[in-house]
């Protein structure tokens, strides 16, 4: 019984993490139809920046509780700088091209940013454990969980709710949804698609960096964390249905629970679990769980 509880809690924690890293990606793909491989780099940049800035903050003797705010600020800064630079400086010139060429562009950006991170931060891992242990922990059955995991869960829920609200209740958000549905019609209706792209990419970058920043206290921030998360984020996005926020949430929960179950009951299957889920979901629902119906041109 307590093992089942552990599976559930671990699953939800992992799902929260997956959702946070996937939400930016699904937004960017939904609006711009770009498979943004550089999303992994934004995640890494967010993690490194948060680790450095918050680490500096704590080392200077400031209130450790402030480190959370510093992490957030770091992520937003990364998104606000990297997002526009990549979008305005590079992607804007490539929009007319084939979708797959854009993937290549984002891959090139990913390669460049990997070495950029290495040049700026070096090869030694960074860690920032104070925010993780600061909030204490709670006990359930025979297990102890740091309260930071609750923060992660709350953050995931908050991000999901905020993004959903912005998309469906604000004017800007509804324009984004319109562009997701039909780019051409939206442009014909007078929506400034270029500006929508810019905003989307920046928001997606911020969300990616936020994922990294929130994860930084739990992990060791080292070279290569970007590459590891890309494929996970993609899998979640595809399982959920591209461009669908509720899809991403459901997919994250599904993958998180399956992985948690694998770890507890059959640890050797852990390697496969996410790909199994992806294969099975795609076989059953070829366009992901919540796919947006697309008109077919004849």
């Amino acid at each position, binding site marked *: 019984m307590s093992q089942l509880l552990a599976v559930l809690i671990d699953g939800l924690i992992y799902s929260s993490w997956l959702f946070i890293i996937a939400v930016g990606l699904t937004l960017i793909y939904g609006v711009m139809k770009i*498979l943004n491989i550089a999303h992994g780099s934004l995640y890494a940049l967010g993690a490194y920046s948060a680790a450095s800035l918050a680490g500096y903050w704590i080392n200077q003797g400031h209130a450790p509780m402030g480190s959370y705010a510093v992490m957030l600020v770091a992520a937003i800064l990364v998104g606000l700088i990297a997002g526009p630079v990549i979008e305005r400086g*590079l992607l804007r*010139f*490539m929009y*007319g*091209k*084939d979708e*797959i*060429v854009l*993937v*290549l*562009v984002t*891959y*090139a*950006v*990913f*390669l*460049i940013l*990997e*070495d*950029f991170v*290495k*040049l700026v931060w070096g090869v030694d891992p960074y860690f920032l454990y104070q925010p993780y242990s600061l909030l204490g922990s709670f006990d359930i059955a025979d297990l102890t969980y740091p309260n930071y995991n609750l923060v992660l869960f709350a953050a995931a829920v908050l991000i999901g709710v905020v993004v959903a609200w912005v998309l469906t209740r604000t004017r800007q958000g509804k324009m984004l949804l319109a562009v997701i549905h039909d780019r051409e019609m939206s442009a014909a209706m007078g929506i400034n698609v270029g500006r929508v792209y810019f905003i989307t990419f920046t928001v997606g970058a911020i969300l990616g960096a936020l994922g990294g920043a929130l994860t930084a206290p739990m992990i060791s921030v080292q070279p290569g964390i970007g*590459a590891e998360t890309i*494929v996970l984020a*993609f*899998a979640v996005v*595809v399982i959920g249905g*591209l461009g669908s926020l509720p899809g991403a949430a459901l997919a994250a929960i599904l993958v998180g629970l399956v992985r948690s179950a694998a770890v507890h009951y059959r640890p*050797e299957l852990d*390697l*496969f679990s996410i*790909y*199994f889920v*992806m*294969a099975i979901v*795609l*076989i059953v629902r*070829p*366009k*992901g769980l919540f796919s947006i119906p697309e008109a*077919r*041109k*004849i």
Partner: protein
Amino acid sequence: MKRDLTVSILIGALIVLLLAGPLLPRWAMFLINVSLCYGLVVLGMMLLMRTGLVSFGHGLYYCLGAYAAGTLDVLFGISDIAVMLLAAIAATGAVSTLLALLLRKYRDIFFAMLSLAFSMILYGLLVKTSALGSSDGFNVAAKTLFGVRIAGTEFERYLIFAITVVTAFVAAICIHWYRGSHRGRLAEAIRDNELRVEYMGASVANTVHINYVMSAVLAGLGGALAAISVGHIDPEMAYWTTSGEFVFVAILAGTGNVLAPFLGAFIFETIRSFAYEYSPNTWQMALGISMLIVIMFLPGGLWSLFTRMRKTA
């Protein structure tokens, strides 16, 4: 006319490579050798891309071909190159025929991700198998060719090179003729508008299936030849980053002509190799920047250098 020129260039390249092989410094011969192996896989990718599909999981067949060739020695004590290649063709042909039944219904990113999922499943299976060396893989030594012993002889490297060149040549010629054939031309039609192709009475599913199997067999051949040339195989060949590399080289090369994949693979390998040597700390950045330059100035891929017909987006 254009078709004849491609064939002439192919024949010319075959002769030049076979004759010049022993004259080149050995590292250059090896570089060309490895490029041709990758080029074979990219040729398969090109075939699929002309059908409108991008597979992010071709590492599956690349790895499968390599392991099919490599395990022959472990399981049956066979280390003949010809048998290894046949085994690779058989294994990849069989698996792809089965998988294509499922995959042929998918398009765009779903096709990409589903193929990625299968390749990662193979990766996981191989990593779990310590009998095959798990993630370290194992060494492959091809000892004979059609029964004639070549291992340890002076000509070993050259013969392996020659076989790779000949295989690449045969594959290129076959795909070139296929492209000019009826079913070959259907591929591009499918990419443009599937529904109309169906209306006209051709079977989209069958064409996609055939093209997929052919591209898988090409990837398997590339993998087996890589196994023989490099002498080592490991599950990394099935990892998504390997598949991703093939996609990128395919885009870089462009889909204009069967020569493009080999040229693209060669240039990619060369850039990567020199980036390693001259900027060991920032080779990724160097590679990324080179790729961006190619994309920006050669939007049709490298091959568009050679043709006046640029692809309109």
